[in-house]
C-alpha cells in the first residue's frame, strides 16, 4: 500500500508519572476542548486522549490530575477510563499491535496471523515483549472487514495482511 511506517509511541515510565502537571501547551489545548461543550465533564474523554497522546498511557497520577482539572473525583475518572478498552492503564510497548479476531477477519485468515504473531514475538495477548517494542492485543471488529485480515498498529490500519507482509512490516518497526 506504500503506507508510511507508523511512528513509535513515546512511553513515559511510571516513576515520571506519579505526579503530573499540565504545561502551557496542554492548557491551551484543554481550553480549546472545554469551549466545545456546555459542561466540563464532557471534556473527559478528549482530555484522556490528550494525555495518552502525550505520555503514552494513563497512570494513576494522570487520572488524579485530570480529575482535579475537571472538578471530578479520581474514582469517577478511573471508572470511566477503565470502561474504555483503548485507554491504556499500564505502560505499553512502543508499538501496540491490535489484531482483529472477529468473524469476517477470521473467515479471511486472521487466526493464522495471530498464531504467527504470538510465535514470532513470544508473547500472548495482553503482554508486552521483553524489549519493550511490542504489545499484542486482540480486538473486536475494527470496522474495515472488507480488507480483512487487519492489524492496527498505534493509530494506523494495516489491511489485507498475510504472514509475509506482516514479517516485513514488523521488521521495519524499531
Amino acid at each position, binding site marked *: 500500500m506504500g503506507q508510511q511506517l507508523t511512528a513509535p509511541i513515546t512511553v513515559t515510565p511510571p516513576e515520571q508519572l506519579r505526579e503530573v502537571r499540565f504545561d502551557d501547551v496542554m492548557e491551551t489545548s484543554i481550553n480549546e476542548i472545554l469551549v466545545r461543550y456546555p459542561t466540563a*465533564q464532557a471534556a473527559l474523554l478528549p482530555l484522556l486522549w490528550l494525555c495518552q497522546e502525550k505520555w503514552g498511557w494513563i497512570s494513576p497520577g494522570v487520572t488524579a490530575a485530570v480529575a482535579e482539572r475537571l472538578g471530578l473525583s479520581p474514582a469517577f475518572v478511573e471508572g470511566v477510563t477503565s*470502561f474504555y*478498552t483503548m485507554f491504556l492503564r499500564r505502560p505499553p510497548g512502543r508499538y501496540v499491535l491490535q489484531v482483529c479476531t*472477529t468473524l*469476517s477477519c477470521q473467515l479471511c485468515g486472521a487466526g493464522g496471523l495471530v498464531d504467527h504473531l504470538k510465535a514470532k514475538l513470544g508473547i500472548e495477548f*495482553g503482554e508486552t515483549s521483553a524489549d519493550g517494542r511490542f504489545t499484542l492485543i486482540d*480486538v*473486536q471488529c475494527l470496522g474495515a472487514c*472488507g480488507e*480483512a485480515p487487519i492489524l492496527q498498529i498505534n493509530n494506523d490500519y494495516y489491511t489485507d495482511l498475510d504472514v509475509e507482509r506482516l514479517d516485513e512490516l514488523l521488521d521495519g518497526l524499531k
Partner: protein
Amino acid sequence: MEPILLRARGTPNSRSIVTYHEAGGYESLRKVLGLQAETVIEEVKKSGLRGRGGAGFPTGVKWGFVPRDLPKPKYLICNADESEPGTFKDREIIRVDPHMLLEGIIISSYAIGAHVAYIYIRGEFYSEAVILETAIAEAREHGYLDPNVLNSGFAMDIHIHRGAGAYICGEETALIESIEGKRGQPRLKPPFPAVVGVFGCPTVVNNVETLASVPHIIERGGEWYASIGTERSTGPKLFSVSGHVKKPGVYEVPLGTTFREIIYEICGGIRGDKQLKAFIPGGSSCPILPADKVDIGSDFESVAEAGSMLGSGGLIVMDETVDMVWALENLLAFYAHESCGQCTPCREGADWALDVVRRIRRGYGRPEDVDTLLRIARFASQGMTICPLGDAFCEPIRSFLAQFRHEFEAAIESARPLPPKKQPVLPVRPGHGDFGL
C-alpha cells in the same frame, strides 16, 4: 444505478472542498437556508429515507419528534461509531467524501433547530477523525460553519468527539452518556433522546449514511429519492460485503437488489468457486440466513419476511467450509466482551452462552446444551434488558440453532467422554485483551 453516495469514489482529491464544489457541493445548503425548517423536514419525509444505523426508523419522522418550542438548545449527533461486526460503510463515506457528510449534518441541524452538532467517531478511526478535522476547518473557512452561515443568520458548528473502544457506544443513549464524559452505559427509554438527550436537551442521533443522504434529497427532491428502491424501502443503500466473496468491499445498490446479485454479480461470487452456505444480511446482530434465501430482495420488508433484519447492511458471506458452531462461538465472544454489564441477563447470559458453545466446539458438549442455549436466548431478549444488545446476541443463538441445529447436535453426539470424576473444565476466558485490566 448511477452512484449517488459514492459518486466521488475514484475522483482524485475527492476529499477536498474544491472537488466537492466542482461536483455542486454545498448548493443544497444554500437552497435550504432560504426555506422553512418544516419544509426541509417534509421533503425528507417525502423521500421515505429510513435510518441506516440499524433500526431503519423514518428519518423525517424522527426529526419531527423534536419539541421545537422548548426553550433549550437542540443537538444533532452524527453516529460514526460503526462497530457492528461486518459493517464498514461509514468509514468509506468519510474517506471518500467527508464534505457530503458535513453538508448533510448542517442541513439536518437546520431542520431540527440545532446550532451545534457532534460527530461521535469510534476511537480506532484515527485517520478518519483527522480527515473530518481537515474538512471541518475547510468548511469554517468557507463560512459553512460560522456564527452566521453564509449571511443567513443561522449559527452552526460541528465538533468531533472520539470514542475509545466500546461497541455499546454505538447505541444512541450510551453514545450520549459517552459524550457527557461517562461510562457508555445505555439509558432506559423513555424519555427518548428527541426530548431528553445530550446535556438534558432535545437531541437527534443519526447515522453517517443517513445524514450523507440528505444533501442528495434536497438537491434532487424527495420524490426522486423515493423513486429508487422499493415502495417502502426507498433510496440507494451501501452494503459492506465481507467474508468469502471474491471482491469484498462497499457497494451502493438500490434497496431491494437481490442478495444473489450482490454476492454473485457485484462481488464476483464465492472465493475459490465454493458453494455458499449462509449469509448474515445486516451485520452480526441480524439472524443468519441459509443459502437458499439468496434470492430475496435486500429491502427492509423482504429481509424481515425471510426471518432476518437489514440492520446496517453488513453482509457477511460464508462458504460451505464454515463450521457453524465455531462461527457462533466467535460472535458470542464479541457480545460477551461488549456487554456494558448493567443488566444481569445480558452480562451473565452472553458469558454463559459463550461458555456453552465453546464447550460444544471443544468436544465436551452435553445433550441438554441446545436447550440451555435456547433458554438463555429467551431470558436475555425481548424487553428483559435496558438496550437491544440482549437481543443482539440472542438472535444469532436462535437463528444458528434454527438453521444449523444438526451441526450442534452432531458435535454434541460425538463429544468425548469427560475424564473420570473431573468436572468439565470450563474454559477460562482469556483476558479479552483489555490491556487496561
